[in-house]
Each structure stands twice: as C-alpha cells, then as structure tokens.
C-alpha cells in the first residue's frame, strides 16, 4: 500500500473515515445476524447452551405443530406478497404514469397527498383501519350503503377467510406511494428524444406508454419487486397492531414476523424460546436471500440492457 501514494506512506485517514461506520455496522448488524444463525444450532439444556446441530430445524419442519405453524405463516406471507405485486405495483405504475403526463396541473398536490399514508406508522394505520372497518362504528357499512352495497359488508378483519386479504389491502393502501414515486422518477428520466421519436411515428397515449415507456422502466419495476419482497417477508408491525401477536382470527393472518415474535418471547402458556426463534429467523433469512438472489442473478442481469 505504501507504494500507491508516495506523499502519504500510511494513509491512516482512510481507516479513520471508515472505522465508525464499519464498527457500528459490524457490531450491531452483521455479528448479531451471524449470532442468530449460530444460536439456531444450539439448545438450552439445564441453563447451558448445548450444540445440537440441525435439531431445531428438524423440530421446526418435522414436528407436526411447528411445521403447521411455519408453513401456515410462510403461505400467508406468500399471499401477502402476491397481493402486493398484483394490486400495489400496478396501481403505483398507473398513478405514476398519470402523474408524469405532460401539462398536468396540481401534480405536486397529488404526489404529496398520495404519499401521506406511506409516512404514517403502522400503529396509526392499523388502528385507523380497525376503527373504520369496525362494525360498531359503522363507517364502512355507511359508506357501502351510500353506493347501495351494504349487503356486502362483513367484519372483514374478524373473519378467517377475509382477514389476510383485508390486511394486505391495508398495507397496499399504505405503501402504494413507494412504487408510485420510484416509477415516476424512472419515467422522468426517459430522454425526451425517445418520446419525441415515438410521437413522430404516431405512437401516442396509451400505446406510447405500453410500447415505449413500460419496457424502459422495467429495471425500476424489478427493483420495486425486490423491495416489496424484502419488505413483505419482513412484515410484522401492521399485523401486530391490527390483530395482536396471536395474528388472529385463528392464526389466519400469521406471518413469519409474528411467528418469530411469539416463538422468541412466548405467548400465553408457551414460554419464549430464543433458539427456536433463531431457527425461524434463519429460515426467514434464507427465504429473503433466495428471493434477492433470484432477482440479482435471474432478473436484473437480463434487464440491464434496457438501462441508459
């Protein structure tokens, strides 16, 4: 290293600049992550941590009750993710496309207003929707009555078959601003010449969006998909505030995050178990890692050629 720069034989300042960030990041993020992976290979026997290899995972996947809760949570998580992909991202793209149309008035008003739910905490969002959908208060049935659909009302959050979809849609409502903003930014960065060329060829309006702009923003859609994936498989707060740690009714809204919380801290009569909790965290880690790898190696490399 000394030969790289003659004037400063030892460039201590590089280390000084890097040290605080690397230390905090390593100590609070990376080491605990590996610590958690490691803990999942141990078990507490007579107050001692004993190495048990993959036994916790054998319990998690082999024991009937553990396996049932794990697969239930994973399945719910997948449904949660699919609803986001099918509802949140298309709505986000639609709104962004409308916002980026030239000569639109009130643009910044719409942009600011539609992004507001995204900045609210899950606690606010969870409780606000719980109140609005509550049959006691009656805002939701009243509104449905206005459009003559009162018969459709049901206590959605309290019914097993609707609760998960309802929560997913609440989460969609909250986060639609993120795909909207990112796609909006991507649409703005398309060079004007491309659009002008399309207009010269008579491609305007919807077909212009479909044939010219959409292919060009595919990389951003890829990034949004992976962000949605990581966020969804990490979800906890909304379900915890709206349905409690038990993710009721009857675990129909249980996701990996709430399962991890219950396992780690215990609930009702079951004692908390850090080791099984770590095993679940490790499983979540693997799920997220696989998802990110699919994106990085399967999708992103193919999308590269579209970027400017």
């Amino acid at each position, binding site marked *: 290293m000394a030969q790289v720069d003659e004037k400063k034989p030892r460039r201590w300042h590089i280390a000084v600049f890097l040290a*605080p*960030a690397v230390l905090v990041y390593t100590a609070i993020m*990376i080491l*605990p992550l590996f610590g958690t992976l490691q803990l999942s290979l141990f078990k507490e026997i007579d107050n001692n941590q004993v190495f048990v290899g993959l036994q916790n995972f054998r319990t998690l996947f082999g024991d009937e009750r553990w396996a049932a809760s794990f697969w239930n949570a994973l399945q719910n998580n997948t449904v949660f993710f699919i609803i986001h992909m099918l509802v949140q991202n298309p709505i986000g793209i639609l709104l962004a496309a409308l916002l980026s149309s030239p000569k639109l008035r009130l643009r910044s008003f719409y942009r*600011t207003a539609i992004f507001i739910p995204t900045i609210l905490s899950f606690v*606010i969002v969870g409780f*606000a929707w719980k109140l609005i959908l509550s049959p006691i208060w009656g805002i939701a049935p009243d509104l449905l009555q206005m459009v003559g659909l009162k018969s459709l009302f049901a206590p959605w959050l309290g019914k097993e078959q609707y609760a998960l979809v309802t929560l997913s849609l609440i989460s969609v409502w909250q986060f639609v601003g993120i795909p909207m903003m990112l796609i909006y930014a991507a649409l703005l960065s398309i060079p004007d010449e491309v659009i002008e060329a399309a207009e010269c060829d008579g491609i305007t309006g919807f077909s212009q969006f479909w044939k010219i702009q959409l292919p060009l923003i595919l990389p951003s859609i890829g990034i949004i998909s992976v962000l949605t994936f990581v966020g969804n498989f990490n979800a906890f707060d909304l379900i915890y505030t709206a349905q409690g740690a038990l993710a009721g009714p009857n675990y129909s809204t249980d996701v990996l995050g709430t399962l991890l919380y219950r396992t780690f801290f215990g609930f009702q009569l079951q004692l908390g178990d850090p080791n099984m*909790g770590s095993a679940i965290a490790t499983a979540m880690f693997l799920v*997220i890692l696989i998802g990110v790898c699919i994106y990085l190696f399967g999708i992103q490399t193919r999308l590269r050629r579209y970027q400017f």
Partner: protein
Amino acid sequence: MNHSSASFGRSVAAHSILLLYTVIALFPVFVIVINSFKSRKAIFRSPLSLPDEQTFSLIGYQTVLKQGDFFLYFQNSLTVTVMSLFLVLLFGAMAAFALSEYRFKGNSLMGLYLALGIMIPIRLGTVAILKLMVASGLVNTLTALILVYTAQGLPLAVFILSEFMRNVSDDLKNAGRIDGLSEYRIFFRLVLPLVRPAMATVAVFTMIPIWNDLWFPLILAPAEETKTVTLGAQVFIGQFVTNWNAVLAALSLAIVPVLVLYLIFSRQLIRGITAGAVK
C-alpha cells in the same frame, strides 16, 4: 379540434383517477382527525360530519394527556431519531467519502459489504441483538435504540452518499490539497457542504422508518421512561380500546408530528427520489 378534445378527455380522466385515489389515501386520516374533536355521542351518531359547536369536545385529548405521558414519549422519539440521524449522516458520509475518494485494496469489497444491509433486514438479528444489549446493560436505554437505528440506516446512507460524492469535482479537492488542507479538512470543509442536498434526502429516508418503528422499542426499550411515541400510542390504545375519544385523540397526536415533518421535507424527499437517488 378533434385532437384537442381527445386530450381534454384524457386530462379529465387523469384528474378523476388521481383525485379518486387522493380521496382514498386521505380519507382514513381525515376521519380519525375530525372525530378526535367530537363528543362520544357525535362520534357514533354522525362519524362523517365535521365537529360543530354542539359536538365539539376535547375530552379525548384531556384523557390522553392525563393518562399517558405523551410529552415524555415524544421527547424520547425525538432524541432517538435526531441522534440516530446525526450518527447515520456523520458516519455514513465519512465512509462514503473514503469509498468514493481513495483507491485502496478492498475498496469495492468494502462497498459491497456495507451495501449488504440494504437487502437484508436488521430485524433478523434481533435475538442476538437483544442478547448483546442485555450483556452490555443497555436494555431499556435510548442508547440501545440509537445504536440499532444507526446500524440500520448506514447501508443506504453510504450507498446514496458515495454515488453523490463521486460527482464532486476533483479539481476542488486537489486545490485544497495544494493549499495544505488535511484530508479531514477537505472532507468537512469542502465536500460535506457540497453534498448537503444528498444528505437531506438520506435524512428523510432514514428518519421515517426510525420514527415509526415498533419492533425495536417493543423489544429493546419497553420501559415506561424509554417508550417512544409509536410504542406509547400502541400501548395506550391497547389499554383504552373502548374509550373511543381517547383512542382517536392518541392517533391524531401520533399523526400530526410526522405529517408536519413530511410537509416540511416533502419537496426535499421528492427531489431526492427524482434526482435518481434510488436508480
């Protein structure tokens, strides 16, 4: 003529869709806030009307301020958010400067290492983080939260800031070097002021998840004296489920600070996103 009426129709359609979605986005917030100023009877009798002379009531806010120590929670949230933000920006900018300015062995490897945290959520390490905090006696202190949020915010901060610092002109820095400024002075005096807009973007991105987080306050600092607003509202609402006035008032109190911050910084946030911070 034909063309202009088609574009008029299109713009009406665009406005009606955007307006419809704006209503959907704001309606729940609106309902919560107006009802928090009404008496209990009026909340149930006409939930969608604005409070008037007869139905106006501050009973919910009185209950909240009497029962929950919201000023303390607010102070805790503010301390945690501001301190974490300061550390994220300072440490993040220093690391970003090192990565973008100097060529050294392992530079890109270090960049990759620091970027890992963008994709992998810090929550997965919770079990071990709690152990670490218990071992170092930091449970139920704001320090624990500040450390965790600093670690959580650093990856994105380093990533965005190093992109921006690559664009700072080399001539300027070299002129500083010829004038005998040390590397530290070049960083603090020349580079930092130039990347201020990027710092503001990072600040907004970092601030919102910290202020809104429920998971770490719940696990690392659930004690009464270290509760944040988000956790305080959660616990308070859990206890007062049937007192609708109090619940609505607590929700409104939790909404207002973020809303004000957002409206102040929204231009910055939008500029940051559209400037390609997240390309």
